[in-house]
């Protein structure tokens, strides 16, 4: 996103995880601030306007959920990704209720984390308001629920349409299988089979077969990405 300040905050008390998070985010072009305890994290989050932040659930001094609650009380809406070793749904719900925007269970793949931070950072930047999304020669009419490629209409099942629309809203960014399950099916668990891959495969066949270039790409080990060639 050229011309946009990509400043993110990482609140993490484990030194090695923190270093890996910072490295990973830096290498994909973010400016990263690191806070190693809850107090420091809260101070920084109050002081600087970040595009997104990652918050460890268990922190010294102030616990991750408490930080988010206090930020929201102050009217600060910086999107927050909660990173936690507590994976149970109740805990997930507690985190999201406190004002967290997304939740990732440790251990996670760094690219999954990156995909989610990207999604959050994008959201805080330009909120997609258009009702027609265009990626390359693909056109998605969100209101009429019509998909066209090179002007030719493509028939999609309702769920397939939702999946494509979610990929299109996050165009150019990697979306993980769990994110798809969460946002397209409204389910909160990690798929253990390749069923999502196969499902995306069918959407891909409908969208990409017989076209000049593919739009839906599989990113090995992580998930999928909808993007047009440069």
């Amino acid at each position: 996103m050229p011309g946009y300040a990509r400043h993110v905050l990482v609140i993490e008390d484990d030194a090695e995880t923190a270093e890996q998070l910072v490295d990973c985010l830096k290498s994909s072009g973010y400016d990263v601030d690191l806070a190693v305890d809850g107090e420091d994290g809260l101070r920084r989050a109050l002081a600087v306007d970040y595009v997104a932040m990652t918050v460890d659930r268990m922190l010294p001094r102030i616990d991750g959920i408490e930080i988010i609650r206090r930020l929201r009380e102050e009217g600060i809406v910086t999107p927050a990704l909660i990173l936690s070793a507590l994976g149970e749904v109740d805990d997930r719900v507690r985190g999201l209720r406190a004002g967290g925007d997304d939740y990732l269970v440790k251990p996670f793949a760094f690219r999954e984390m990156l995909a989610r931070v990207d999604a959050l950072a994008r959201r805080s930047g330009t909120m997609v308001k258009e009702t027609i999304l265009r990626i390359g020669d693909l056109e998605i009419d969100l209101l009429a629920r019509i998909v066209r490629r090179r002007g030719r209409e493509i028939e999609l099942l309702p769920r397939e349409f939702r999946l494509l629309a979610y990929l299109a809203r996050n165009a150019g960014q990697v979306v993980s299988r769990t994110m798809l399950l969460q946002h397209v099916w409204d389910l909160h668990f990690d798929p253990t089979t390749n069923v999502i891959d196969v499902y995306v495969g069918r959407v891909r066949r409908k969208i990409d077969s017989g076209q000049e270039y593919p739009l839906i790409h599989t990113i090995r080990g992580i998930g999928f990405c909808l993007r047009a060639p440069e």
Partner: protein
Amino acid sequence: MLLSKTLRSSTLKLAFIYVIAFCAAIFGLLGYVYWSTVNYLYQISDRPISAESALLTKVYATGGREGLITLINRRLADAYFNDWWYLLVDHSLDYVAGNVKSWPPSLRATEGWSTLASVAWQSGAARPLSMRVKHQLLPDGDHLVLGRDIEYLDRFGRRVTIGLASAAIIFLILAAAAGISTSRRSVARIEAINATSREIMRSGLGERIPLRGTGDEWDGLAENLNSMLDRIEELVETNRQVSDNVAHDLRTPLTRMRGRLERACNQRLDLSHYRSLVNDTISDLDEILTTFSSLLRISQIEARDRTAAFRNTDLSEIVREVVELFEPAAEEAGVRLQLSADQTVPVVGDRDLLFDAISNLVDNAIKHGRDRGEVWIAVARCTDEPVLSICDQGPGIPIEERTHVLRRFYRLERSRNRPGNGLGLSLVAAVANLHNAHIVMADNSPGLRIELHFPIPRRAVPSTFDQQEQSWAIGINRL
């Protein structure tokens, strides 16, 4: 040790309370028996005195004072009447006839019955005695006093008292002994159970409480505790097997990764080799992490702390969504999914968990069914009971294996080399358990027919998310 425990035991305290209550009842009863017996005897002893008095009065009426004196003297000479007492005095209480010297000072001058402790005898000998006395006024102003020694009655009364008292004491002693011996017995049995518990804490679950074979309630308790211990031992054993399996399932890929990394460290490989090596290692690690989170998930579901997310849901709708999700996968495997879930079938449950469990069942049916075969998925209400059934045409599960397949990491011999971690059906079992549903496995000849029978929904629970949950759900959909 046992004695002090017996004395402190609650059974003994209870026994003593019973003994005291019992003794009170016994004493009451014996007291009544004593009182009524003695009263009756006194009444009987009064009867001859009354008869004699009536006779003497009649003689006085016919023969006058002289006739009466003659009769009294005759009576005094008769050995049969030697325990009788006769006294006739005139109106100024002066001696007229009889074997007593003078009017006893303790005797009242009015008519009636009384009991005297001693009298002054004509013969001079004053022995202590107990006299039952009747005093009668005669028409001429004379007083006739008749008496009889009732010492034998008093003796009898004393004997009755002694007998009753010793019976009461024997009762008391017997009851106390019974109480103590009962308490000792129960304390001894409890002590045996305690000893076993201590032994179990010290050395492990191998110990069992000894039975006496009497079939009494103590044996019943011991049997129940023993079968509880059996069950615990079985669970611990299952747990141990699971840990062994975890160790095995983790060690295998870990060994693989270690070897791979060692090789990378020691040999000079080109970049593409390194890359594929790292990629393989990452996917092995992912596999381990998946296994881990599946295990954790099953434990958490089993811990039953997820009923908070229970809502009214439509089983048919969940199944339709699962089938829709798996349609492409089935197509790829050349399997046709046949769905029959038209009517709304409400169940109370957790949508995520139900979706996950049903996904596992459908996934299994596709993977283990016949190639180019069909899988039938049906939701129906069987006598109001919501039932989900999934049938495939594969080789099925042998009857003797059917309960084992629900165990963690259990895999049928023929599927050892297929992908999967042997946790899918354990998750289904855990979810079914949480929903109070039961799993039925049957032969589809050929194939497996697996059914989930849900309880008839009764509880009224909110059918939609509450406000806060809804707001974050919308927040996510906006992403």
